[in-house]
């Protein structure tokens, strides 16, 4: 580019013309307006001149007449949009439509007869025209429907740790997708398995969906038959409930007293299980909170076990586990213990699974160890084995990385970080360290962000500081006080060892790294052996670890 014709910048300092910063709260104002504006197909200009309105009305009239007279049926126009529903809303997609619950988030795009939807949160009832094909990407499941009516609910939860008090291994995320089919045939694919869902049936998919026929405890034919029966009953009840709600809404709409009034929609998201999973964060959960208070009252073990059964049938494993444990607290029961173990395994709560596994008679433990193994939990090993050893034995770094990426793309940052850390635990990957750093920043985990920041390439560190700053973590800000919050660790080993710090590969000896003040677990990997030590890092000080493993390889 020839920019030298009149090099004004060389003679005058154009930067002298400064601009003040934008007003505070710009992002809030924009998001508020954008939220109100979506979907874009229903946005209207701020002011329309009368002739524009007239022309549009005339065009619409001509189009209606053309269709009426000549029976011209045009396919709906292609388009796309984003819906972040702050209240119940209807999305008109031509031959298809959706009724979207408050709080739901989705994006849609229509290309010809195919409607692609990414439903990341909340519930929606979809009515799909005969000529349309609806494909919903609902986090853990992909749903395809044609000429059907169905409800899809996506619930995600990151706070089950707080709610359930389970270990960090199970802290990841509960991601549930429930599909209820009212009419037509619907196909759902999850984790490589495709199932057809018949009208009147419902199916729930979790992180690792299990076909209904596998949902039995003990695996007997009788159990499977009973579970299938209960599932049909639940689907039927849900169907009836939704029909009743629809009837009520239709009646309210016809009622002249209620016309113009804001008819309050049924809030399907505020059920007790969702509240428990969300640690009663939602204001509408207050009504359920009292149940905790009355928990001290004399309890009904059978009722609690029954409630747990219901949750289990609906794929709400953590809620089921809670009720089974409450039931066991009332009255010890081997059958309930088995179910609690099953729920713990399905919800990937290793610690809880081990507790219930130990309560089983040794004659039947091997069966249950097999069941839990399906969910990636190995119970028949010595639990004093180090985490690192277990991980090395079973982990697949690439699969964990892919899972972490999926979580990250779906906004599940805590879960993504957990998966990335597990992957790094299997295999060190400098690119993945960057993602772990990003997930730490996004999940506002400052300690982890600082840990991974020290592992980033120096030439990129300023970019990463900026990234983290956007999520409220100012790594620079702390720089002057690093003496007060971090210290150095120097590690030597003979022979040279691979080093993991807090379960994350840090490099090979000799190694010098900066760590946050406090206790850290340092693992030396020499050949196939692992030796773990705890080190206490002091502010601004360098701590030396030197280990001699000669003769121990």
């Amino acid at each position, binding site marked *: *580019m020839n920019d030298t*014709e*009149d090099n*004004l*910048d*060389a*003679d*005058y*300092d*154009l*930067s*002298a*013309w*400064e*601009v*003040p*910063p*934008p*007003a505070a709260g*710009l*992002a*809030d*104002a*924009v*998001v508020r*307006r*954008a*939220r109100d*504006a*979506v979907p*874009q197909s229903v*946005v209207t200009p701020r002011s329309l001149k009368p002739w524009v309105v007239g022309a549009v009305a005339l065009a619409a009239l001509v189009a209606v007449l053309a269709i009426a007279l000549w029976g011209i049926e045009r396919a709906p126009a292609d388009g*796309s*949009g*984003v*819906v*972040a529903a702050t209240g119940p809303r209807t999305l008109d997609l031509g031959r298809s439509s959706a009724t979207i619950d408050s709080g739901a*988030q*989705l*994006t849609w*795009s229509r290309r010809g007869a195919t409607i692609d939807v*990414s439903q*990341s949160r909340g519930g929606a009832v979809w009515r799909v025209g005969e000529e349309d094909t609806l494909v919903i990407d609902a986090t853990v499941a992909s749903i395809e429907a044609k000429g059907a009516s169905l409800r899809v609910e996506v619930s995600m939860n990151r706070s089950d740790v707080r709610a359930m008090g389970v270990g960090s291994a199970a802290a990841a995320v509960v991601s549930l997708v429930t599909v209820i089919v009212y009419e037509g045939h619907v196909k759902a694919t999850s984790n490589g398995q495709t199932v057809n869902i018949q009208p009147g049936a419902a199916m729930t998919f979790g992180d690792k969906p299990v076909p209904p026929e596998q949902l039995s405890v003990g695996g007997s034919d009788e159990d499977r038959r009973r579970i299938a029966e209960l599932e049909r009953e639940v689907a039927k009840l849900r169907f009836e409930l939704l029909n009743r709600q629809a009837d009520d809404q239709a009646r309210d709409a016809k009622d002249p007293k209620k016309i113009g009034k804001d008819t309050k929609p049924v809030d399907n998201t505020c059920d007790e299980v969702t509240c428990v999973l969300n640690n009663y964060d939602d204001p509408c959960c207050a009504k359920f909170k009292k149940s905790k208070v009355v928990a001290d009252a004399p309890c009904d073990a059978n009722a609690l076990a029954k409630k747990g059964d219901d949750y289990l049938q609906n794929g709400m494993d953590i809620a089921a586990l809670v009720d089974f444990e409450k039931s066991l607290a009332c009255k010890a029961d081997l059958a309930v213990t088995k179910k609690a173990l099953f729920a713990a395994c399905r919800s990937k709560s290793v610690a809880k699974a081990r507790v219930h596994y130990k309560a089983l008679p040794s004659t039947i433990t091997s069966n249950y160890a097999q069941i839990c193994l399906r969910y990636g939990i190995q119970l028949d090993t010595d639990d004093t084995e180090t985490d690192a050893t277990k991980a090395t034995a079973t982990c697949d770094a690439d699969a964990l990385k892919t899972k972490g990426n999926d979580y*990250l*793309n779906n*906004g599940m940052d805590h879960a993504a970080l957990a998966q990335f850390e597990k992957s790094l635990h299997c295999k060190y990957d400098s690119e993945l360290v960057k993602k772990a750093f*990003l997930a730490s920043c996004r999940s506002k985990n400052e300690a982890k962000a600082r840990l991974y920041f020290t592992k980033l390439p120096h030439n990129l560190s300023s*970019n990463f500081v*900026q*990234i983290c700053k*956007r*999520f409220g973590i100012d790594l620079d800000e702390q720089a002057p006080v690093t003496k007060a919050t971090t210290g150095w660790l120097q590690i030597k080993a003979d022979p040279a060892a691979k080093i993991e710090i807090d379960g994350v590969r840090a490099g090979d000896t000799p190694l010098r790294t900066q760590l946050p003040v406090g206790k850290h677990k340092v693992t030396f990997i020499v050949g196939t052996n692992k030796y773990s030590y705890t080190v206490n890092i002091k502010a601004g000080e360098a701590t030396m670890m030197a280990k001699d493993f000669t003769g121990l390889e």
Partner: protein
Amino acid sequence: MPVVATARTTADQLDELTLRRAQRGDERAWRDLVACYQNVVHALVWRLLVGRARHRVEDLVQETFVRVLRALPSFDPKGPATLQTWMLTIATRLALNELRRKELEALVVEPPARERTDAGAERQRLGAAIAAGVAALPDTQRAVFVLREYHELDYVEIASVLELDLGTVKSRLARARGALREHLVAAGVGVRS
């Protein structure tokens, strides 16, 4: 101390994941996107509307982002335009539309925003002279000049933003620079030593 946008206004690039989330309608990602690009968009609109009331600038910046967020699902990150250039295109066209409106307010060159030291007085005077000189440029020359000098868009990008031929961009930029130079000489502000 508020951060001011100086000569070269570029934003940090939004990471791909945040962009994908924003395209899916994630409000947190929307906020991140706005936070990432608000300075650059605001600076462009401010400079294109130099001399207009402040509230118009804020309105247009908001309007730019609202349009960006609405159209974001269809934005192709692998397409010819970067996200920033695409946003600047929207902002420029909104600003030019605004400039075409008849009911414009009286041209007011912004007074100095705050007290400066003596050492900064000359720079302040230069800034005011540049603002007045750019305000006097025809709209399209002003847009070409601001996009080139303050946002570092290349000729092809400017041609695309303003829907002009490459030759027209070059000639308008040359004319804008010439006119501004004359203005600055007439204003008697000092050249770089």
